């Protein structure tokens, strides 16, 4: 038996696994017929997806006038939801790219599902600006090519166009990163399958064999993709914040927006990862791979980013007061005590106060608390975007145009419908691909598993072959 985890490190794979056990545990959910829980969850998600399709058809047929958005509050639920979803879509790349660069081994347990979640969240986010265009059949005008009205181009100086580039790049690069990581695992599923299933996985695993040279290139590719995805993920929410920050609206026109939005995005993304992981590990019985240590690590990120967001809120208030500029002061007074005061306090409570509970180790390691607080954070982050968008627009420069905004049933249906879209995609994903990266977990088994019990496990074997210095060397490869 070999115990090879350095005492200061957390055990990341429990339950005395061999390599074969890992394959078995992680492939089985894709092989057996769906459980009753899965079918119920899928039916529910699909129903919401149906609602989404209906509400979108309604919007396209009748026009944007069916929404509660008006002349004053022209960005309302749609852009709130867009920013909310795109924020959620940041955790996957953060986990897979930034944690890969920092050599955090706990990423291997959650990266696959988090990346999938990223891709699905970005799909959901994309729906809102596209359908907010109104004449959605002209949506291709956002892409820069000389159009049919003469060689008139898009405005490359506009943050809204930067958004088009940032989000489409982010989506496609995340997809490449995710799928390339998935290919070796699809090959594992392929090699266990027979008949039609085997043919299908053969197609999607691209002919992967596991040759040493291929693994070497695969690692080189993963590392560079991680390297370029890191600034990419930071750029995406920075550019989303430019949509607001480059405007001349008091309350939006602030230089603090990029870091504040990025921290908020990571915060909400990790909360959504927690919501999903807590359920996934239970339903698919992956407690040995997504351990309480993983959950605790993510909760630490949540308390850090939640605090950054809190500091940003207070900084905004302070700067508004300190600027001595009455329009800025009014914008923030209105944000806290104005017509939407309840969303401001909701935001403050959910985003700043509630995550502070994670300073307690006991709460940080409690599954129920984690699940509960992850939902609270998701609600809080939705409030944040609503506060920034609706509150600011409701009281603009001209008191005669001041207005109030209420969503209509169409907007509510579209928003809850995108959750249906998200969970439908996620549930399909759990059926067709391993939700934990098999190869990557195997690669850390001897250094981060509690005990290696493969067929050749020899006493002291792990110790002699994976001394601390060698682990460090391995980490630099």
């Amino acid at each position, binding site marked *: 038996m070999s115990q090879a985890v350095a005492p200061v490190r957390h055990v990341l794979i429990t339950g005395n696994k*061999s390599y*074969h056990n890992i*394959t078995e545990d992680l492939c089985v959910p894709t092989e057996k017929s769906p459980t009753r829980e899965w079918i119920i969850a899928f039916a529910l998600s699909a129903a919401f997806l149906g609602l989404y399709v209906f509400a979108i058809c309604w919007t396209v047929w009748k026009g944007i006038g069916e929404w509660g958005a008006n002349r004053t509050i022209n960005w309302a639920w749609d852009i709130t939801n867009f920013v909310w979803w795109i924020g959620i879509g940041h955790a996957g790349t953060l986990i897979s790219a930034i944690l890969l660069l920092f050599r955090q081994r706990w990423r291997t347990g959650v990266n696959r599902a988090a990346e999938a979640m990223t891709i699905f969240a970005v799909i959901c986010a994309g729906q809102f600006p596209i359908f907010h265009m109104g004449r959605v059949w002209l949506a291709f005008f956002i892409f*820069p090519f*000389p159009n049919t009205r003469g*060689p*008139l*181009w898009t405005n*490359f*100086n506009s943050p809204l*166009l*930067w958004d088009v*580039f*940032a989000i489409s*790049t982010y989506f*496609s*690069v995340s997809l*490449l*990163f995710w799928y390339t990581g998935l290919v*070796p695992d699809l*090959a*594992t599923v392929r*090699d266990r399958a027979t008949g039609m299933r085997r043919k299908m996985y*053969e*197609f999607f*695993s*691209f*002919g*992967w*064999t*596991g*040759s*040493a*040279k*291929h*693994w*070497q*290139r*695969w690692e*080189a*590719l993963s590392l*560079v*993709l991680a390297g*370029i*995805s890191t*600034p*990419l993920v930071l*750029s995406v929410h920075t*550019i989303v914040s*430019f949509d607001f920050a480059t405007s001349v609206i008091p309350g939006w026109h602030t230089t603090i927006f990029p870091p504040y939005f990025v921290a908020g995005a990571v915060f909400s993304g990790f909360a959504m990862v927690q919501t999903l992981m807590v359920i996934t590990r239970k339903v698919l019985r992956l407690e040995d791979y997504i351990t309480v240590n993983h959950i605790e690590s993510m909760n630490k990120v949540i308390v850090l980013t939640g605090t950054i967001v809190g500091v940003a809120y207070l900084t905004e208030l302070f700067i508004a007061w300190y600027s001595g500029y009455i329009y800025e002061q009014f914008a923030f007074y209105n944000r806290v005590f104005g017509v939407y005061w309840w969303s401001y306090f909701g935001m403050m409570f959910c985003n700043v106060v509630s995550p502070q509970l994670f300073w307690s180790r006991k709460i940080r390691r409690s599954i129920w608390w984690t699940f509960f607080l992850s939902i609270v954070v998701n609600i809080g982050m939705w409030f944040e975007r609503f506060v920034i968008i609706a509150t600011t627009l409701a009281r603009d420069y001209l008191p005669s145009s001041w207005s109030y905004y209420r969503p209509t049933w169409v907007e509510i249906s579209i928003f809850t419908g995108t959750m249906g879209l998200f969970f439908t995609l996620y549930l399909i994903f759990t059926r067709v691909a391993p939700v934990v990266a098999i*190869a*990557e977990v*195997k*690669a850390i088994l001897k250094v981060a598993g509690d005990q290696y019990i*493969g*067929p*050749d496990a020899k006493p002291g074997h792990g110790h002699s*072959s994976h001394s601390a210095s060698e682990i460090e060397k*391995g980490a630099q*490869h």
Partner: protein
Amino acid sequence: MATESKKVLYGLYNDEEDLKGAVKAANAAHLDIMDVYTPFPVHGLDPILGLNESRLHYLGFIYGAIGASFGFLTMTWVFTRDWPIVFGGKPYWSVPAFIPITFEMTVLFAAWGMTITFYTICGMWPGVKAKTLDNRITDDKFCLAFDVTSSTDNDVDQLKGFFTQSQAAEVNVKTI
């Protein structure tokens, strides 16, 4: 990427350390290894197999540079030559405003270029039939393979002897 079929003699090992030992022994005996297949990236295998570091990242840099130039020069051409428009009193050639898109194009080109190159040089594409020696290589077996298409029986016996010596768990022959 060879298309004609090969006769391959391969041994399966139960542990990556056994495999590494076998590769070292094969090198010492001057045996010509065809390839090594593992279920996950085994660190420390590349140097003993004599694999050079992948040059994929140099290509990534070149693709990124192409993307950056393409994005920046397109915007420059559009706004200074093809259809100059004044936006908010700014110069036609407003470089700071071009930076976000230039950056995104750099990342887009580098990522797609590298990924397409990766799949192409590995001979991998959707629908390519894997030349799998054994189904358990993607599970928990570590495989060392020799090409014996044109070997004599004597050579094959010698290789089998080598596998026995290096404690391979199984030895098989397969045509792929």
